Structure formats: C-alpha cells, structure tokens
C-alpha cells in the first residue's frame, strides 16, 4: 500500500492528497458515497460518525457529525455540484465550527490493475482560510517537499 501523499504548498490556498487503495473503483466509490459504508471509515476511530443527510445528486446536500465520548460534536455540511459518479465527486465543504469558510473539494478515482488511486483537491478561499482549517485540526497538509522534516525531527529526538 502506498503512503498517502499530501501537498499544501506555501502561498497556494489548496491541499492535494493522493492515496492508492487495493480495491476496484466501483467499490471505492461505494465506500465514498453510501452512508452506511462512509461512517465505517471517514475520520479517526475515536469519533462516532452520523450521516444526517446525503442526497447524492447535482445540487443535493449532505451533512454529517463526528462525536466523541466526551460529548464533543463536530458538524460538517455541503452541496454536491454536478452529478457524482465513479469518475469524480465535486462538493462544497464547510466545518460548522467556522461558518462561511467553505472549501471546494474534488475527489477522483482512477483504477489500474484492480487498484484505485484516490486524489483529493481542496481549494480554500484564501491561504489564511486554509491555514485556519489546518489549525482547527481537520484540514491542512504538508508539501511533499517537506517530507524530510519527519526525518529531521526523528534525528533531533535521537540527539536530544
């Protein structure tokens, strides 16, 4: 399984991710679009995910909530743009903790040899909005160019 790649280049209000999954595209698409499957994987295990609305069509709205044991709940909602299909899903995304900060997300699914590469492209209103999203602990990322930061930190930890 390939490592997920994240790119969040400085100065560009965008976050890109790429991840390969060992399943055909049709199945991956179902996992992204069927609420009973979606709640089984989206988000950290510590959250119980509830899908409140998921109207999978052009102009359809969606809303889901991540809740933890301590009673904290984080709601997210948005609208599908264009007809979602295994070729791709375009949707707006808004964290209800930061109303008005909306990103536009495009997810594409590409199958090769029975494996599917999922690419996400999130475009924010500004670099500040992107960074605020990252600060909120939900969105953000890191440029592939910074991958060595991890190595460096490991080295620093070993030397301290």
């Amino acid at each position, binding site marked *: 399984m390939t490592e997920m790649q994240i790119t969040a280049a400085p*100065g560009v209000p965008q976050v890109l991710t790429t991840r390969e999954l060992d399943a055909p595209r049709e199945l991956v698409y179902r*996992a992204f679009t069927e609420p009973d499957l979606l709640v089984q994987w989206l988000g*950290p295990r510590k959250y119980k995910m509830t899908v409140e609305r998921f109207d999978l069509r052009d102009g359809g709205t969606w809303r889901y909530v991540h809740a933890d044991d301590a009673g904290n709940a984080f709601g997210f909602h948005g609208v599908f743009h264009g007809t979602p299909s295994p070729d791709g899903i375009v949707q707006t995304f808004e964290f209800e903790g930061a109303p008005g900060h909306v990103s536009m997300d495009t997810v594409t699914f590409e199958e090769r040899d029975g494996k599917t590469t999922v690419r996400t492209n999130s475009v924010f209103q500004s670099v500040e909005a992107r960074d605020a999203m990252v600060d909120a602990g*939900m969105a953000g990322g890191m440029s592939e160019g910074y991958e060595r930061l991890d190595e460096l930190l490991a*080295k620093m930890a070993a030397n301290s």
Partner: protein
Amino acid sequence: MPVDQLDAVFGALADPTRRAILSRLTQGEASVLELAAPFSVSQPAISRHLRVLEHAGLISRTRRATARLSHLRAEPLREATVWLAGYREFWQESYERLDELLAALQEHEPDRSQPEDPTGRSTS
C-alpha cells in the same frame, strides 16, 4: 504559531541545503565555515541560507571570538509539525480504516471487476 511565521518556516524548509544545514546542527552548534564544508556552495551563499533560517526562528546565532556559531532552535519545527499533523492524521487514519473496510467488502462479494478467463485457463 502565526501564519506568517509558518510561511517563513515552510519557506525555509523548502530548500534542500537549508534542511541539510538543520540536519547538521542537530549534532551541535557550528560555524559558517563548518557548515559550508560539505556543500559545493560559497560561504556567502551559506550565510544567506543561515539568515533565512534565523528569520524563520529555526536557528539562533552567537559570536565566539571571530566565529559566528549557529544553533538549532527546535520549537518552531515542532509547532510546524503540529500544524501539519491534523489533516495528515485525519486522512491517514481514515484511509487505514477504508483499507480494512474494502478488504472486508471484497471478502463478502468477490471482485466483480475481473471477468472470468474465457479460455478457461488459469494463469496463476
């Protein structure tokens, strides 16, 4: 960490020479001469890199006799990593869970994407 300082940290880390300098400084303080030694770039070029790192708060510099010594400052790096950690962890964990779900689904319903071999021969 303020956004403009994050930009400075990420900008500083985007350069391989500067990362190598930071890496060298994990072993302890060093002079410009010592830092320039492993690279095929001039001392003034190394000094420029050090100024970028200093501006980002990633190193501090002190003077001892005639040498200017650079020291690593770890805190901005740690903060930058925390900044990055949210999304990365969210999606890494999600995709790990999705791996498990997809594996379970495929166990229950065999892979329909692979048509049966029309010749009846098995290649495996």
